[in-house]
Each structure stands twice: as structure tokens, then as C-alpha cells.
């Protein structure tokens, strides 16, 4: 029953499972009119799934959505749009070869009964909003793909306003914006709020939360773990809310943590710079240790690693392997020099899904099995594969099954085995346990530690704070392309690292 005091949007008990994974495990959320509501959560916490439920892209298994007090069912995005909900995504969803005007109106064209589009009327409908957003009307007929990401975002906001959206969801909007563009966006959000519209604002950045939000909700592992008015939260409490996970179970620092000796690093990166990605980065990776690299998405960690791996060269700076400067032209050279890199997207960049497990395990070390006249010793290859499967406890029927049929955790173990089997000096692992269950995560952490114990220099890039704390001897923290902290020993605390990564003032340890 709609009442004047009903919140604009209310969801209760939203549950959603994808196969065996629970993305949302009973989420309650309430958003008022004229309110900017920040939504916080790490990758995999369920934010995207919640947004997709709200915009009608997917339907929840359980739970209710109420708009202005009235229960609504969104079977299709058009239902959500009719209810006044619009979303502006992190990577703008656009039609690059169509004009700005068409991007605003496709699917909602103003047309005659016969279907002839009325371009002039559409332009006239958009014009008032362009004025309000201080956009040049001449943009209407430019190709959308020619605009910068910042302007594309503004066009998508105009699109939401043309559709008279009362609830606008922003998904990490400032990750693609410059400082000036961010200020402009915040001015606009302020005006939207004054107008009585509701804003859902997804972000990692604490400074932004303080600046524009009225309420804050934290999502962790598909549940709401905290919700409060922004004014009631100081930075300490916010950090506690976000880092809360770090104080639970497996995030405990290991007893075998070693204090590294910096004198003779296996890998040293000096003042590495690449325009737009990272600037003046220094890494020092001693042998026989695990160095974690923590930071939010976009902080440049993978890109720095790719420079050392020869996949994405830097503009300036040096990479030194055991004191010798190197500049590998491609990954094959880097591997020959002794640097390995396990990419974060195992589906796209790691496994050969349709090939058998044994092939995936031995593909990089085939020359060990080469006999005279270019023949492969398949028996030896199979034996080695069996040994690796046993050693890394990969759960598969046997070595001939296609690796694509294994669970994510076992695929990751296989990829790990592939790299571990080569003679390397440095191994970089990018998000090695993303999307993997806790049990397998712990196993992989054990493998990582034992690799390091054997003398290898291991780098673990991760956005999972408990993982970083659990597995590393020291942590390099990166933010927006620069190294902001190197934490070791006592200083390796969840709050300090998180504070550095999000840009909050570091609190006294």
C-alpha cells in the first residue's frame, strides 16, 4: 500500500543462486527518496547480482521488491524501466557506431504509428536534459564511440533522465573519470538528490562515501553485514565494516611468516612508468618469500606484472632479475629468463578447456619428453601428469579428462602445477584463488608457501585482503598506479593496508 512515507525502493529477503553458488543469501535494503545510498563490497560480494535484480536483468529466486510501497515483479528490464529504475554501468553499455541521440532512444524511440522514427522530436525531448547536464546539444549527432568515457557516462545519465528515472544506480562511476569529471558528476548527483530522486552508488572509495552519500550499506558474501547513516560512520567504523572479513577464520597470519632480506632481490622493479596505468612503481621481491600485492581494481598491479613478463612494456623504468637488467620482448622470453605469470582469467588465458588434463599440465615442459626424431614419450608424459595430480591433490577421474570439466578450484590447481613444474626464479600469480571455495583456497596457499620455502620468489596479486594477509610475508599496497605502502611484520594489519588502498588517512597502529 503506497504511503507518502514509504521508502522509494525496498527489497527484502532477496536470494539468488547460480548453480551451486549462492550469490545473494537474503538481502534487505531500503532506499529513501532524495537519498544517496552507497553500496560497498568486495568483488564477489553480490553487488552486481543485486543490481541486475533491481534492473530486471535477472529474477531473484526468493524475495520481494517494493517500489513506493507497492510490490513489483521485474520479468524484463523494461518492467524496471517502467518503474523508474535506471543504471549507469562501470563500462558504459553503448552502441558505438550509432549517434548519441540514438543511444539515448534505442528501444524507446518516438515514432509514428507506421514506425517512422521522429528524430527531431527525440532531439527536442533530450534537449532540456542536455541543458541541465551542461552538455553541448551538438553532441546529439556525434558518434557515441567518439566520445570520451566521461562524456559517454553523461549521455547515459541523460538517457536515464529522459526515461524519467526516479532511481539511478551508479556502478563505480568514478573509476573511468578524471578528478574534474568526478567533481562534475558529484554536482549532478547533488542536484538529482535535491530533485527527490534516489541514487544507489556503488564504490570502494571512502572519500567519495563521505562526500556524497547519506546512507551506507556493506555487502559481504551475498549478505548485508552493515548499514548506517553516513554521518554516523567515521572512517574507523567504515574500515571495520569493510575489513570485517579479515578478522574471520582463515585470514590468520601464518606462523612461518618470514622477514625478508632485501639485499639481493630476485626481482626488482625500479621507477616503472606507463602513461595512464602506473607511475614510478618500485617493487622489491626477495627470493624464498611470498610478496603480496594488494590494491583495488584499477590500481595497476597486473599491468606492472605484465611489464616484467614481457606482455605489456612500460614507457620507462627498469626491471632487474637478480641484479641484471632485463627487457623481455614477449612472454616466451620472460619464461626463458625464469619469470612465470599465472593470469587472473583462467578461462580465457589459462586452461585449454577441451584438452585433457595431462596436456594442460605438461604443455609448458614438453621438451622434457622429447626423444629422438621429435617424438614424444607419452608414457613419461603420462607418468609426470599422474605425479602432479597426486602431489597437488587435483580431483579428477584420471589424467585424460578434459580440464574444462573440472571445478574451478581444480583447474586452478592444475594451472598452478603447470607453472610450479618449470624451473623458475620468479613466479607471479594474479588472483590465484578467485572464485574458488575456501578449502581449495587454503590448499593453494599451502602450495604457494612451499614454493617459496623452496627458494622461489613468489608474487601474489590479490584483491582478497584475508588471502593477502594469510599467504604473504610482506605486502605491497598500490593505489591508482602508485605504490602507497610496503607493509611488513607488525604493520601488516588489515585496517592499515585497507586504509592505504582506499586512500583513507592511516590510523595509528
Amino acid at each position: 500500500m503506497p504511503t507518502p512515507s514509504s521508502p522509494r525502493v525496498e527489497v527484502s529477503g532477496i536470494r539468488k543462486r547460480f548453480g551451486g553458488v549462492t550469490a545473494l543469501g537474503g538481502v534487505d535494503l531500503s532506499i529513501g527518496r532524495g537519498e544517496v545510498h552507497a553500496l560497498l563490497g568486495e568483488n564477489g560480494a553480490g553487488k552486481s547480482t543485486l543490481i541486475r535484480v533491481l534492473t530486471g536483468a535477472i529474477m531473484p529466486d526468493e524475495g520481494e521488491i517494493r517500489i513506493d510501497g507497492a510490490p513489483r515483479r521485474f520479468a524484463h528490464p523494461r518492467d524496471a524501466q517502467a518503474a523508474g529504475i535506471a543504471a549507469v554501468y562501470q563500462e558504459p553499455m553503448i552502441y558505438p557506431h550509432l549517434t548519441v541521440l540514438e543511444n539515448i532512444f534505442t528501444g524507446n524511440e518516438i515514432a509514428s504509428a507506421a514506425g517512422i522514427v521522429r528524430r527531431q522530436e527525440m532531439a527536442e525531448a533530450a534537449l532540456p536534459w542536455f541543458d541541465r547536464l551542461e552538455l553541448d546539444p551538438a553532441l546529439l549527432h556525434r558518434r557515441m564511440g567518439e566520445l570520451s568515457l566521461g562524456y559517454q557516462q553523461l549521455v547515459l545519465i541523460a538517457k536515464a533522465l529522459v526515461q524519467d528515472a526516479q532511481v539511478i544506480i551508479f556502478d563505480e562511476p568514478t573509476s573511468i573519470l578524471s578528478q574534474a569529471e568526478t567533481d562534475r558528476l558529484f554536482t549532478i548527483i547533488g542536484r538529482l538528490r535535491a530533485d527527490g530522486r534516489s541514487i544507489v552508488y556503488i564504490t570502494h572509495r571512502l572519500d567519495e562515501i563521505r562526500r556524497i552519500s547519506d546512507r551506507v550499506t556493506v555487502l559481504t558474501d551475498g549478505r548485508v553485514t552493515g548499514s548506517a547513516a553516513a554521518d554516523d560512520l567515521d572512517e574507523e567504523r567504515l574500515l571495520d565494516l569493510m575489513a570485517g572479513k579479515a578478522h574471520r577464520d582463515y585470514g590468520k597470519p601464518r606462523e612461518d611468516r618470514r622477514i625478508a632480506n632485501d639485499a639481493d632481490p630476485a626481482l626488482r622493479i625500479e621507477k616503472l612508468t606507463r602513461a595512464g596505468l602506473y607511475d614510478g612503481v618500485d617493487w622489491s621481491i626477495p627470493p624464498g618469500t611470498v610478496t603480496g600485492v594488494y590494491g583495488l581494481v584499477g590500481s595497476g598491479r597486473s599491468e606492472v606484472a605484465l611489464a616484467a613478463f614481457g606482455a605489456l612494456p612500460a614507457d620507462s623504468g627498469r626491471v632487474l632479475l637478480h641484479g641484471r637488467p632485463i627487457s623481455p620482448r614477449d612472454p616466451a622470453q620472460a619464461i626463458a629468463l625464469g619469470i612465470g605469470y599465472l593470469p587472473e582469467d583462467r578461462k580465457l588465458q589459462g586452461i585449454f578447456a577441451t584438452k585433457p588434463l595431462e596436456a594442460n599440465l605438461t604443455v609448458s615442459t614438453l621438451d622434457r619428453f622429447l626423444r629422438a626424431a621429435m617424438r614424444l614419450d607419452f608414457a613419461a608424459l603420462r607418468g609426470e601428469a599422474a605425479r602432479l595430480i597426486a602431489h597437488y591433490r587435483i580431483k579428477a577421474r584420471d589424467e585424460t579428462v578434459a580440464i574444462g570439466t573440472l571445478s574451478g578450484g581444480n583447474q586452478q590447481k592444475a594451472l598452478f602445477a603447470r607453472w610450479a613444474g618449470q624451473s623458475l626464479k620468479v613466479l607471479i600469480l594474479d588472483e590465484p584463488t578467485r572464485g574458488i571455495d575456501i578449502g581449495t583456497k587454503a590448499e593453494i596457499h599451502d602450495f604457494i608457501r612451499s614454493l617459496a620455502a623452496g627458494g622461489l620468489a613468489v608474487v601474489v596479486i590479490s584483491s582478497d585482503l584475508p588471502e593477502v594477509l594469510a599467504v604473504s610475508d610482506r605486502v605491497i599496497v598500490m593505489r591508482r598506479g602508485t605504490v602507497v605502502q610496503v607493509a611488513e611484520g607488525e604493520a601488516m594489519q588489515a585496517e592499515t593496508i585497507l586504509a592505504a588502498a582506499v586512500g583513507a588517512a592511516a590510523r595509528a597502529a
Partner: protein
Amino acid sequence: MSVDNPAGTPRTIGAFGPAPTTGRPAPRPPRDYLPRGREGLLLVTLAILVLAAGFGSHGAFWSRVNLDNLLVGSAITLIPAIGMTVVILTGGIDVSTGSMLGLCTAIGGTCFAAGWSIAATIPVFLLSGAAFGLINALLIINGRIPPVIATLGTLSIYRMFVFIVLGGNWITQIPPALTMIFVVDHLAFLPVVAVIALVLLAAGMVFLRYFRWGRHVYALGNNEEAARLAGIKPERIKLAAYVMLGLLTGLAALLTLGQSPMAQTSTGSGFVLQVIAAVVLGGTALSGGRGTLLGTLLGTLIVQVVDDAIVLLHIQPFWGGVALGAVILASIGAGAKREAMETR
């Protein structure tokens, strides 16, 4: 909160309501009736080729016979090329057009040989073409087979059926009236075939540019996911595109028999290459979402003029194939380079 509010009348007046209309009209889109950019380049290229052919052949190019042949050939290539443009715009492709043409001529030719009148046989051509297009569409949409692979399969299957229908024979009992009406008769100095092609081209251009569903074709090719979320039904558009291409191919089959009144097992082989070359040369990207029918027209003419010039200038015919291949590579290469630069 009422829900039936078509876009364009904002309901909220508040601190951030729309700015009061200042009476200043919205900017009109730039006039793009004149070919610019790629189309301008193609026009220039065509002009140069035509002049070169004219000179090189010592005026033989400009003879009535030659120009008529050129126009008839262009028309027969253009008609399916219109449908192919739309298919490629949606992000798909159809390589079975040549075999489809052959099979439609075989079926229609069989009707002619059995004494059917032209009027009775026209629907046969159109319906069989549409049916084959429908088969392609179902394989791609329902069977979820990638378009190039599905139509590669039907290419072989349709060609095989040509053998079955013709039984290894030729059909030559094509009513001469077919040639008279479509090829010999002229309307405003153009063979009737060419007029038909131009009318269809104009209809296509209007549809793609001014009609909502035409714009949806482009949206689909740009970002299918976004289009689906916006309420567009990709399956419907793709179905219509492939069926329409089939229908137009059926029409082209009828007109082919007017141009050369013989249905043989090899009718149509190599045809699809001409059609796709014309479309791609005209600026339609194989990835979908961009391209114009005007470009397809220019592409078709260029391909036909090159073919014609090779004969007139007594160049060995196989150079025609080389020229066609080179043209395809060059235009896809240029397109790919442009895409790479734009997405940087």
C-alpha cells in the same frame, strides 16, 4: 506513480527538472544525403574505373550493348546484396547465397520446363528462396550454430540438391518472354531489371534509415546485449533478415534466367563472393553495426565494372578473380585498421 509515460514528457519538476525550453530548436542532424567519407571515395573510384575502361576499350565500353549488360549484371548482384547488407549489419553472414540461387533456378526452371507460365512461377522462386533463408535462420537462431558455419553447411547441401533436381541435365525451356520483359525492355533508359533493383534499393535505404526496426538492425549489430536489455528482440530481427535475403536471392534467380536462359548445375557458383565483395567494399563491416546500402550500390558497380573492363580490355579472365580477391582484402584491411584506431 504512473507508468505509461512515453519518453519525452518528464514528470518531475523540481530542482533538477528539465530546463525550461528556451524556444531554441534542437540541432538538426548534419545533412548526409550527399555521399561523404567512404562513399565519396567509392564514387571517385568508380568514376576513375569507368573512365579508364572507356578509354582502354576505345569506346566499346560506352556501347549500348555493353552498358546494358553491365546494368543487368549489377542489378542481379545488387538485389541479394541488399539482403546481405542487412544480414551482415546484424553481425551475421550467409555464404550459401550462390547455391541458393542455383537451387532456385533449378526448381523454377523445372516449372518452366513443365509449361508453367511466368506469372505462376514467380511465387515459386520467391517462396523457395524464402524457405531456404528460413532454414538458414533456424539453424543459426535455434540451432545456435555460428552463421558462417551454418551457411557453409547449407551451401553444400543446397548445391547437392541442385544435382538432384536437375538430374545432371540442363534446362533450356525458359520462356523467352522472361528475357524480353526483364532484360530487353527498358524503362527510362534502364533495363527493367535495373529499375527493379533500384526500387528495392530505395525501399531498403528508407527502411534502414527512417524506420524504427531499421534502426534496431544497427543497434543489434552494435551491441546485441544492450539491445536485448532495451527490449529489442534479436531473434526476430535475425529471422527476418535471413528470410529476406533468401527471398531476394529467389528473385535474383528468376532474373538470372532472364539474363541467360539456362539452368545448370553450376548456376550461381562464385556468386556469393561477388555479393559479399560488393557489400564489404561498400563499407559494411563484417563485425556488424555499421554500413550503408548506398555503399553496397557503389561496391556492386565497382565490382561489375572491373569484371567488364577485364573482358573489354582483353585481359585474361582469371585476373578478374585476382582483382576480386584483392578488392576484398583491401577493403577489409582498411576497415580493420580503422576499427583498431578507433578503439584505441
